[in-house]
């Protein structure tokens, strides 16, 4: 099998699976579930298969010229394949989790196709080397996340889904305007051509800020961050997907793709991004400290951690960028685990308000330990994976000479420890609050999934050599 074919398969298996799923769901519900899992898992397997050859021999590119420069340009370089592998692996585990989680709700026939389409669009976006192609996949993820956030169809849920859709689309329209301006300035939508063109003529500041607005809105970074905590009304696997695997990672990934690998930002812009990221990290960490809804706390934590990733990518030095790449992996694993744990708690204790929860550790030991492990990784406690990525970013910040910013982020990291311990204490420690919170464990499949995320977070730290080597090579190639 050629590399090009594998690349197409990674994208097309989920995208065609979407059209087959409605037919399968007429036959049998469990066949539908396994089919969606298989579609995502196949994407993951093919991504992992491509990793060795791409890291050794360099990028695989498919190019077909189309009118107006709306070319079909796909490229699988080390950044793309690394992200694709991470994202599809996490999504596959999340889908496995949702078999049991979602089984007693209506509209499952909509849920699975939407999740598979979501992942398919993400795969397409990751490999796009043309801005219009990228934009198309970007909007498809917006449509699917809208349907998924409003999954329960309560009035307020749908309103919040609409909010998420409108905020992200507003951002993406600004971004599209930026893309069109890039086309004006460089004469192309293709990232390779743009990369060559900007070496001669730098992109104007207005264009950069338009694209940045789109990225920030998708990644739920200050000042566009409020939709993400609101999106917590979605089913927990969906929130896990939004936070850990797909949606907010899109913004970060596109930032890396455009502003690190294609149009390197100059020093003032690097500082601006770092400052926005720092403000976002601190503000949302503060919000996470005071919120009482477990899923909102974790959601604010995502906003805060995304700030770290932006910082890493904005630094422009090898260790910082490598830290950012590694962070995508580590944060994805840990945050997916946290949300799935929250899902188990929400479903079994019938509430997600931390004031009404307490002492769940004795009745839910596996969930508790998994939650703790994932929280350790987000807090950056060695030897968990999250430690290494955060360390690399902070060290990169010092290396770049941003002492104040580095201090701010260290404070942000400290706040992370505080709010996650607070959440853990309120939920798992202390006395049992009310009889209704005597909750048992989730089903075996659900536990297996959260335990897998917890273990992967731990193993990712113990065997840090492998992912960090990949991240370093990726960073070197991006900064070329």
């Amino acid at each position: 099998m050629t590399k090009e074919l594998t690349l197409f398969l990674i994208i097309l298996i989920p995208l065609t699976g979407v059209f087959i799923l409605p037919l399968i769901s007429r036959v049998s519900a469990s066949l539908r579930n396994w089919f969606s899992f298989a579609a995502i898992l196949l994407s993951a397997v093919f991504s992992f298969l491509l990793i060795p050859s791409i890291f050794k021999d360099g990028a695989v590119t498919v190019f077909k010229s189309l009118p107006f420069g709306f070319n079909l340009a796909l490229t699988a370089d080390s950044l793309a394949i690394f992200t694709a592998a991470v994202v599809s692996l996490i999504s596959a585990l999340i889908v496995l989790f949702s078999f049991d989680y979602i089984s007693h709700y209506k509209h499952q026939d909509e849920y699975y196709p939407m999740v598979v389409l979501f992942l398919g669009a993400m795969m397409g976006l990751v490999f796009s080397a043309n801005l219009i192609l990228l934009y198309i996949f970007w909007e498809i993820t917006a449509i699917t996340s809208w349907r998924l956030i409003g999954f329960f169809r309560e009035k307020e849920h749908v309103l919040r889904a609409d909010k998420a859709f409108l905020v992200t689309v507003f951002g993406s329209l600004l971004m599209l305007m930026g893309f069109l301006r890039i086309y004006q300035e460089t004469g192309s939508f293709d990232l390779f051509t743009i990369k060559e063109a900007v070496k001669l003529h730098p992109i104007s500041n207005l264009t950069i800020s338009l694209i940045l607005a789109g990225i920030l809105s998708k990644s739920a970074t200050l000042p566009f961050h409020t939709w993400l905590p609101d999106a917590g009304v979605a089913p927990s696997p969906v929130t896990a997907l939004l936070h850990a695997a797909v949606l907010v990672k899109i913004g970060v990934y596109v930032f890396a793709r455009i502003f690190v690998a294609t149009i390197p930002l100059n020093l003032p812009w690097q500082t601006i991004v770092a400052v926005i990221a720092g403000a976002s990290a601190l503000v949302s960490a503060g919000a996470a400290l005071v919120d009482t809804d477990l899923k909102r706390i974790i959601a604010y934590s995502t906003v805060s951690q995304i700030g770290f990733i932006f910082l890493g990518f904005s630094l422009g030095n090898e260790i910082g960028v490598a830290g950012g790449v590694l962070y995508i992996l580590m944060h994805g694993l840990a945050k997916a685990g946290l949300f799935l744990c929250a899902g188990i708690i929400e479903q079994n204790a019938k509430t997600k308000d931390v004031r009404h929860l307490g002492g769940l550790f004795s009745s839910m030991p596996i969930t508790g330990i998994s939650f703790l492990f994932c929280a350790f990784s987000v807090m950056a406690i060695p030897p968990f994976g999250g430690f290494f990525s955060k360390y690399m970013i902070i060290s990169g910040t010092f290396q770049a000479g941003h002492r104040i910013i580095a201090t701010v982020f260290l404070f942000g990291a400290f706040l992370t420890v505080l709010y996650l311990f607070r959440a853990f204490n309120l939920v798992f420690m202390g006395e049992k609050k009310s009889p209704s919170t005597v909750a048992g464990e989730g089903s075996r499949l659900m536990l297996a999934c959260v335990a897998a995320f917890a273990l992967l977070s731990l193993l990712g730290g113990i065997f840090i050599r492998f992912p960090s080597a990949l991240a370093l090579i990726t960073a070197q190639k991006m900064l070329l």
Partner: protein
Amino acid sequence: MLSLFILAPLFLLFVLNLPLKPVNKACFWLAGVLLSAQILMALGHALCPWSLYPDKLGLFFVFNLVMDNLTLVMLLVIGIVSLVALFVGKSTIILEEQRFNFVSLVLACVIGMNAVVLVRDIFSLYIFIEITSIASFVLIALKKDKLAIEGTFKYLIMSAVATVFMLCAMAFLLLAAGDLSFAAVHSAFYNPANAGLLKCGAGLFLCGLLIKSGVAPFHGWVPDAYSSAPAGVSILLAGITTKVAGVYVLLRLFGSVFILNAQFQNILLFAGAFSIVMAALAALTQDDFKRMLAYSSISQVGYIILALGCGTPLAFAGAIFHFFNHAIFKSLLFVNAASLEKEFGSTNMNTLAGLGNKSPVTGFTSLIGALSTAGIPPFSGFWSKLIIILALFSAGRFVYGGIALLASILTLAYFLAFQRRVFFGKTESTLSSAGTSWALRFWEIALALITAASGAVFVLVHNNWVLPLKAIFW
């Protein structure tokens, strides 16, 4: 061959009105066959250029009919939308007498529209615009209730004003050019002697056509006319009739007959941008789905006018592509409205809720129509808007391009509100379905497929339809 497009419906109209029982019974199918033939001929033109065959029938006419790529696209759209309107009318209009009148009037409209896109002189153009308009006045008033009469009356009055403008304009043009054929008027524009008269004529024509196309601030009649008309008629009006009588004529005259100078450009750009934003804001506040669609229609016409004002060939091609897309997705949305009305007895969004489970086909296809209207990829509306905005940016019109781009968020907002209130929510137990007809579902799915497919195979559409269009203008 070309005159068949006018003579065949005329002949059918004549035959239908003969007192023949079996013919009257089959009136929908006969008209359907005729319109399907029109669609097939338009689609098959590339394989078999029938327009080149000599035209003996044309001897009956004093005007000559000419075929070009723009006309071809228009004939296709007229065929599709009229066919959909016809069969939606078949399943929603119940009274026997109204059914028969409906078919006859649709045929009259088709005659007028086909002629409008085929003729090449301004006077004939005017005649056929009026034929189309008069047929549509009667169509709106088909139900004969108070609202329908009010809607018709508003349209009638506004149209009469537009007619006066156009008649005066023709007088000026005739004075200056001595002849009203497109070629004569066009060459007169290069003669500096009558520049003032010609500019006056073109300006008056522009006013008349802006009223006819329902562009803000001349849009007052649109929501009343569209929402009070029977379902099939709304499709015909919103999808094609007012677009051919107004927007197409604007495109044709300002694209290849008059000279689009900077003043006209500014007027068109402003009217377009104003329509887009104003109508989208108005649509946000509507409670009735059909009224919302009417405002959405005004807003989408704004994009076409905006592209026309931009004045580059690329913008024209984008405008026509958007014309086509708009005809398809707006017809789709009006079929959705017809379906809701038939099934639940209302198009008021306050009384409908959570219908996603009860009528999934309507819910899903209306979502496709809405996303396409809002310019969300990968549906066809995205591509036409992108071409228009790209053309505006290329012409250096960044502000108008930015307005057009960001107005998509308003479009998305009102369609999301619609989805939330009608489909995407908890089902109310009080609503019971009267059962939808399979015919409506068939058209919903067919139109949704067209809009999704022409987005998905955009490259094919571009190479076969959009690219040839660019060549027409200048």
